[in-house]
Structures are given as structure tokens and as C-alpha cells.
């Protein structure tokens, strides 16, 4: 879009003039630059409110909300969407994100009126199918993890962490151990782990990793003390490695009177192959929006059910479903319950339907095969690229993701970020960068089981070609990338320094245009 100096568009759907201009991906003005307060894409009768019941609280200020008619809205959102990369349109190898295929059967099932058009508070006798569905999902989750209880309601992974850590806190209190105020978290952990612990008032104490990228049971033992309430450990960990001493770690943690919270975001690597309950975990969230294919939706919604060990099961929150005399019962209150509830209603029903549909489609056999294919794919990438890229932790086969660091780029003047942006120009979404923090300039690549060998081969060829080009000194290609995307690199500093977080009418702006 050609812009005036205020960064305002000069027209409707101008095709960019730079190299990134594509006739089929024109720029799109903001909704507020297209619509106005009179236009509407919804027909509704005008009613007369002769005797309102608003008690004088009626609106006096204008909303100043732009509307679009239906054809305008359709075009606006279709055009915007065309500026996005998506798993359906290309590989999305974001480590730790499990961007796998999202079957449309799941979407279709979630939209059956019997699931989508039921209210969380309508009589329980009228939603027996919904409760049955939740029960079946619970059965799959419990079976796959070999645990004692599951709390379905968390809204996403981080919410599941919160619930799990709340249960641990309650359990420690019940044991008279309310003073335990430390949670151990390895440095490689995802940001939500320390954030969750801190959110609940815990002090976060880090556990060092070994040279080989895994956690040493001895280091854990050394860190354990009577103040430690729990350890939060990700397994497979964020370096893509299965913690070989996980069973010993669990034992040490339990022996010290602490609980083992397992971050299950990487469950995709082991579902159907390893049951976390067999490893000694006490609580683990499962991201249905990763492992069980509910779509990521550009940032959610997710669902983060938490499985719990026998020890923690009594501290599960409401609601849950159990068999009663007249069919299934929804337990929404427990007298004196330690935890209460972490969300209104019963959690992410829409995600439950999708996840169960996915489980039934795959079957137990298919889930195990999917996990193994995910691991196969990551190892294949590692095998094909390890001669050019630098592998920080070569000792173990990787699990579902391949981790590289930036040491191979050392002399090139090309950063991990530059490298990743160059990948955009080749039609791929970048990998996760600079995470985990324990590795310098990390590149974390998770192909998932959904990518074909053909795509992996092409990805590896492109990665190798880029690496060779970087090593050959073609720095410019990387530092100027991307050039074929709807936008060149964006000025993030400006965005943070002078935050513009909503649209203002040009006239309303403090300094008017020009």
C-alpha cells in the first residue's frame, strides 16, 4: 500500500509496489477506513421502546463503531486472511507449538447443534449427551496418561498449569505444608511455568541442566529442600529430549515431600507410547490445541485439561461428571472443596468435541503411530541437517522437535532471526527462535507427524541451501529478508515506544495528518 507520512493508506486495496506486491494479495484498509456508523451488514427490525426499563442508565455517548455491509465484510476478512500463513497453506515448523493438521471433521462435529447450541446451565437432564462426551474424552485422557483423575475445565495450557499448581498448593496445605513456598523450574522451561508459579506466590528457583540438555537427578536432589512445594518439569523437554532420569527425579521429588508438575505441552511425542503416569507425575496439562489437533485459531482458543495422580485427585476443581442414579451427573459444587473453580461453566466444550473426534478417528493405534511419526520426522530433519547446522545436544535422539543453535552462523553476520526471515521468502514459516533460552540463538523445529517426506525433503533442501548461502557470505539475502511477504520487517521498537493500540479518526489525532 502506498502510504502518506502518517502511515495512512491512500486507497482501497492498492497492490503493493515493492517486490512483495502481488496482484492477489492487495493491501487492505482498516475496517474503520471502509465502513461508517450507518452501514450495517445485519438486518434487524427497528422497534419502538415506549416504556424502557433502563432506569436512566441508557447510553448517551456515541459508539462511533464502523459497520460494513455483508459483501464489504466478506471481502475485508477474505483479503486480510490472505496475508496470513497457515498450516493448511504451508509447513509451520514452530517448535513447542505442535502445528499439526486440523481435520475438518472435527469442525463439523463441533458445529452439530446438539453440541454448539446447548447452554451450560440448562437442566442436566437435557445434556446427557454432552456429559457422556466429556466422560468419553476423560476416559481417553486417563487411559493415555495412566492417571487417576482429570480436570477438563482449563482454558489453555497456562490455565492448566495454574490449576495444577493450585491443586498442589491445596494438597500441601492439607498436609500441613503451607509453608512450602519454592517451586523448582529448569531454565529451559516455557515462560508460562515460572509465570504460573509466581502468579501463585511461589518463589521460582532454577534447576541447572546438564551439558547434554537434560536434567540431572542429582541437581534436583541438591535443589530440593523442605521449602520446595513442587518441581515443574517439561517432558519431553523443550530441547526436544526425553528426560532419561524422569523416574528417578519423580522419586526424589516425592521423597522430599514435593509434587511433580509435568508440563505436557510436548505430549505429542509420546502419546500412546509412554504414559506419564508411569513416570511418577502428579499433575500434567494436555494442550488439546496441540496434541489433539484443535486448531490454533491465530492465538486460541485452546483447552488445557489436567490429569492428576491419586495424591492430587481430591483437589480437583469443579465441575466434573460422574455416574448418578438417573444417568450422568454434573458436579458443580463440593462442600468445603479446596479449589473451587477456575472458570465459569464447564470449560472448552467446543474443543472437547474436536479432540474426541480426533481420538476416535486415529484410534489408540493411530495416536501411537502419530507420535512415532512425529519423532521420526524430527529425527529425519536432524539427520539431514546436522552436518551443516550446529546441534547443541547430540547425545540423544531427539523426540518430536529438532534443536539447533546459531554457532554455525558465527562468522556470517547472519543472526537466527535473519535466517528465519529468509525462510519466509522460501514459502516456509520460520521455526521457533531463541527458545529454549538455554541455547544460544536457538532454532527449534517441530515438523509434527502431519508433514510428508516430500515436504520434509524440500524443507531440508531449502534449509541447507540457506545455510550454505549464509556461509558463502551472502549476508544481504538474510538481513533484508523477507522481500516476498506482504510486509518487510516491521519496526517493533517503534510499536513499543509509541504504542498505537487502537484506531483514531485522523481528525481526532493530536497531530493531524500532514
Amino acid at each position, binding site marked *: 500500500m502506498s502510504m502518506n507520512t502518517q502511515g495512512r493508506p491512500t486507497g482501497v486495496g492498492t497492490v503493493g509496489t515493492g517486490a512483495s506486491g502481488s496482484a492477489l494479495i492487495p493491501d487492505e484498509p482498516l475496517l474503520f477506513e471502509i465502513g461508517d456508523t450507518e452501514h450495517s451488514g445485519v438486518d434487524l427490525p427497528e422497534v419502538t421502546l415506549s416504556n424502557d426499563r433502563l432506569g436512566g442508565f441508557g447510553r448517551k455517548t456515541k459508539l462511533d463503531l464502523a459497520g460494513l455491509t455483508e459483501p464489504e465484510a466478506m471481502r475485508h476478512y477474505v483479503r486480510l486472511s490472505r496475508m496470513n*500463513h497457515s498450516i493448511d497453506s504451508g509447513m509451520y515448523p514452530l517448535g513447542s507449538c505442535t502445528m499439526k493438521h486440523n481435520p475438518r471433521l472435527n469442525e463439523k462435529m463441533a458445529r452439530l447443534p446438539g453440541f454448539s447450541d446447548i447452554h451450560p446451565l440448562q437442566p442436566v437432564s437435557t445434556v446427557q449427551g454432552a456429559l457422556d462426551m466429556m466422560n468419553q474424552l476423560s476416559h481417553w485422557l486417563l487411559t493415555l496418561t495412566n492417571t487417576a483423575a482429570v480436570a477438563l475445565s482449563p482454558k489453555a495450557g497456562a490455565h492448566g498449569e495454574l490449576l495444577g499448581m493450585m491443586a498442589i498448593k491445596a494438597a500441601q496445605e492439607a498436609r500441613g505444608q503451607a509453608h512450602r513456598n519454592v517451586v523448582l523450574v529448569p531454565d529451559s522451561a516455557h515462560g508460562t511455568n515460572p509465570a504460573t508459579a509466581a502468579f501463585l506466590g511461589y518463589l521460582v528457583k532454577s534447576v541447572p541442566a546438564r551439558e547434554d540438555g537434560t536434567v540431572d537427578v542429582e541437581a534436583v536432589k541438591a535443589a530440593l529442600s523442605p521449602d520446595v512445594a513442587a518441581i515443574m518439569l517439561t517432558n519431553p523437554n523443550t530441547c526436544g529430549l526425553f528426560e532419561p532420569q524422569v523416574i528417578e527425579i519423580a522419586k526424589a521429588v516425592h521423597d522430599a515431600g514435593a509434587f511433580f508438575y509435568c508440563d505436557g505441552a510436548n505430549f505429542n511425542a509420546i502419546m500412546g507410547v509412554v504414559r506419564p503416569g508411569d513416570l511418577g507425575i502428579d499433575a500434567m496439562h494436555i494442550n488439546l490445541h496441540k496434541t489433539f489437533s484443535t486448531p*490454533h485459531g491465530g*492465538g486460541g482458543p485452546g483447552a488445557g485439561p489436567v490429569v492428576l495422580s491419586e495424591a492430587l485427585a481430591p483437589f480437583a476443581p469443579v465441575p466434573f461428571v460422574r455416574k448418578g442414579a438417573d444417568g450422568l451427573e454434573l458436579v458443580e459444587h463440593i462442600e468445603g472443596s479446596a479449589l473451587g473453580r477456575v472458570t465459569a461453566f464447564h470449560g472448552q466444550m467446543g474443543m472437547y468435541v474436536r479432540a474426541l473426534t480426533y481420538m476416535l478417528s486415529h484410534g489408540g493405534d493411530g495416536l501411537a503411530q502419530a507420535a512415532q511419526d512425529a519423532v521420526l520426522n524430527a529425527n529425519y530433519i536432524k539427520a539431514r541437517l546436522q552436518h551443516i547446522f550446529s546441534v547443541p545436544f547430540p547425545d540423544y535422539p531427539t523426540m518430536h522437535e529438532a534443536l539447533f543453535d546459531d554457532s554455525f552462523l558465527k562468522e556470517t553476520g547472519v543472526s537466527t532471526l535473519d535466517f528465519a526471515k529468509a525462510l519466509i521468502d522460501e514459502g516456509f514459516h520460520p521455526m521457533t527462535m531463541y527458545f529454549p533460552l538455554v541455547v544460544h540463538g536457538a532454532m527449534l523445529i517441530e515438523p509434527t507427524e502431519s508433514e510428508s517426506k516430500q515436504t520434509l525433503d524440500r524443507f531440508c533442501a531449502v534449509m541447507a541451501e540457506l545455510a550454505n548461502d549464509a556461509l558463502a557470505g551472502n549476508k544481504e539475502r538474510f538481513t533484508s529478508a523477507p522481500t516476498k511477504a506482504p510486509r518487510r520487517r516491521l519496526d517493533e521498537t517503534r510499536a513499543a515506544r509509541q504504542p498505537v493500540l487502537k484506531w483514531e479518526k485522523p481528525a481526532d489525532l493530536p497531530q493531524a495528518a500532514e
Partner: protein
Amino acid sequence: MRYLPHSEHERADMLGVIGAADIDALFSAVPKSALKSFDLGLPAHQPEFLVEAHMRALAAKNHAAGDGPFFVGAGAYRHHVPATVDHLIQRSEWLTAYTPYQPEISQGTLQMLFEFQTQVAKIMGMDVANASLYDGSTGTAEAVLMARRLTKKHKIVLSGGLHPHYRDVVKAYLKDDPDLICLSPSPEGQGDILQQIDGNTAAIVIQTPDFYGHLRDLKSAAEAAHAQGALLIVVVTEVVSLGLLEAPGALGADIVVAEGQSIGNALNFGGPYLGLMATRKEFIRQMPGRLCGETVDADGNRGFVLTLSTREQHIRREKATSNICTNSGLCALAFSIHMGLLGEAGFVRLARLNHFNAIKLADALAGVPGVDVLNKTFFNEMTIRTPQPAAGLVERLARRCILAGVPVSRLLPGDATVENLIILAATELTTDADIAALAAALTEELA
């Protein structure tokens, strides 16, 4: 297995490249005792049509809202979602994109979030809104924590009109906190929250329309709170009401939290829903959740990025404002499209129509012998007192295929004062025939 692209010989080829004897070799770090040491006993993979039959059978065991007269609300509302909305959110580029961390190839999602934030800020009359939270209940808990960070004070007072689930979530988040005061349920719309405000008060939390449908006076509340250096947190569970009620921002609210489900999102048995949060400009850096901001690219073209992420867990870790990561992106998109379709004209018309139908409902209920409508004010929802315990009555009406509302006892069990109360909502989908059917059935049941 239709979701898995590899054939057996491709798997073998790949193992060859890796140099692994078999797939188990890649799981060598797993303790032997834990690797495939079990029989799951789960069913095997199935054709799509059998899975579909299974799920349809489950769905068919539920009474869908569209199957008969329907008056259930209490925090989740059945509105009409235009077909355009549901179609658009299923587009691959919206549905199957990740959080827009790579802005160059995520401008669609980012521009939409910028538009969404603008829409939310406008309807609430606030300076800025974030890019969504999980739902209204968790948003309320986040707002309470945010108020504490902002004021560095501790006492939080929850109105007796706050949705009991929201109250429970705040209680869980603030576990055993002596500084959390929950006023007792106020089904008549009575309130003594202003008396609770003192110098130690971080915030008071007021829902309007409240759980029982009453409209609350935000202006006096804001004045009283501000006089003591406390913040006013306003909670809205029926966001459509903002088409007809004064914007909380215009009345002095400091943080506004809403459940956005009513716009663009189906009932879904309670989730996924959409947490909206807006606040004053000066409070941004204590706000939880993602924010999208405008900037320019290397060629000087306007573009959008996620910004101010030093508030967030992935940058700040244990110092973050919240642990939230995945939020309600697609629900926000649905909201934004629906709101974009409505525009001011449509949103106001929608709110008026809701109120119009609710007045008809209230009048019809008032005409049923033995029924008292407790509300003098309401938007699209109201509470009635019946001569019988509400739970059984609602159950009997359900057997007649009428979903008559929520017995308050469902959310406040054991509280004898609310045992005979039912909360009922009307929306644009409520027809005169629905109301007549309800009134007739209620009359019969109470006869």
C-alpha cells in the same frame, strides 16, 4: 490412517537416513519399563463416517436450544450469529494460523486484532483493550490482580450482583485471601458495596446488568471508589447490553471486563468463550494479555505487530503480568466480524430488540399468577420469584420442551433465600410464541 502421510516404505527410508534400526531406537531415552509397556485397550482407528455416526448419536442426546422455547442466560446468551461469521472463521488462513509472532506473514491476524481492540475499546468507552483473555470469569480475576498491582493495595470487594461463578474464580485465584470481601447475593438488586470502600481498597467489582438482571449505578460507584484511591472494575456478562446502556468508561470505570460470547460466538455448552478487557491508557503496562500495535515496515508501509510484550510470560517469565499465553484468538475474530457487520447502527438495533423482547417477557411473566418479577430495571434478563422451588419447576418445564431459565439455586445451592428464584433471558431470537408458551406452561405448572 488418513491423517498420516507416510507409507511404510517411506518410514523405512527415513529410518535409514537417520541410521536407526527401528522406531524404538529413537525412544532410547525412555526408561524400558515405560515404553510401550501396556495395552491401552482403546478402540482402533475408524472410518470418518463411523466417527461421525458416533458423535451424532451423542449430540442427539442433548436438547438443543433451537429445539423449543429457550430462556436460559445467566452469563451465556443465545444470539443469532450471521452465517458469514462462521464461514469466515473457518477459512484456513484464520483457523489454522498460530499466534502472529511473525508479523510479515501474519498481517491478517494482526490487523484484525488491531480492529478488534478498537471495537472493544469503543463499546466500553475506554482508551485501550487487549487482544482477548479466556473468558469473562478469568478476566475478572485478572482484573482484580491488575488492580492490586496498580494500586499496590489489597482489599477487593465483589458485589453481591457478581455472577457466582465469577466470584468463585476470583476466590480460587486469590485463594484464602483475607482481603477479598464477597458481599452476599443480592437478588433484589440491593447493594452495600460503597460502604465497604476504605483506604486499603484496591478495587470494587460491580457487574451490570448484574447476575439477576438489575442495572447498577456505576457513576456513584466510580466516584466513591476514586474518592478512596480505589479502582472501579466493571463486569459485563451480556455485551449486547452496551448497545443500549451507557459505556462504563463514560461513567468512570477503570477496568472493564466482559464476556464477549454474545457477539459472534455460539453457546457451546460454556466454551470456548471470549474475555474482553479494556482500561485506561496509563494502566496499559499492568494489563495482562496480548496487545497489537501499529507500526511501519522497512519500506515505510503501515503494519501491525504484537507489542509491549515485556508484560508477558514469554519475555518476563516470573515477572509477567499474567501467565496467559494462548487466548481466544478465533473467538475474537468471530466477535470482530460480527461487530463489523453490525456497526453502530446494527449493534444499537440489536440491543433495542433484545430489550424490547425482554420487556414482553417481563410483562408476560408478571401476568402469571403467583410469579413476581423482581426487577425494576433490566436489559434482557430478569429474576422471578415463584411459589415453588425453582429447580423442580425448571425441570418439569424442560420435560415440556421449554428451557425456562436458570434456577438460582443451581449456582447458589443451599441458600434458602434464593431457592424459588429463576433467572430468565430474552434475546432477538425470542418469539412471541415462545413467550406465550412459557407463560401458559408456567401457569399450568403453578396452578
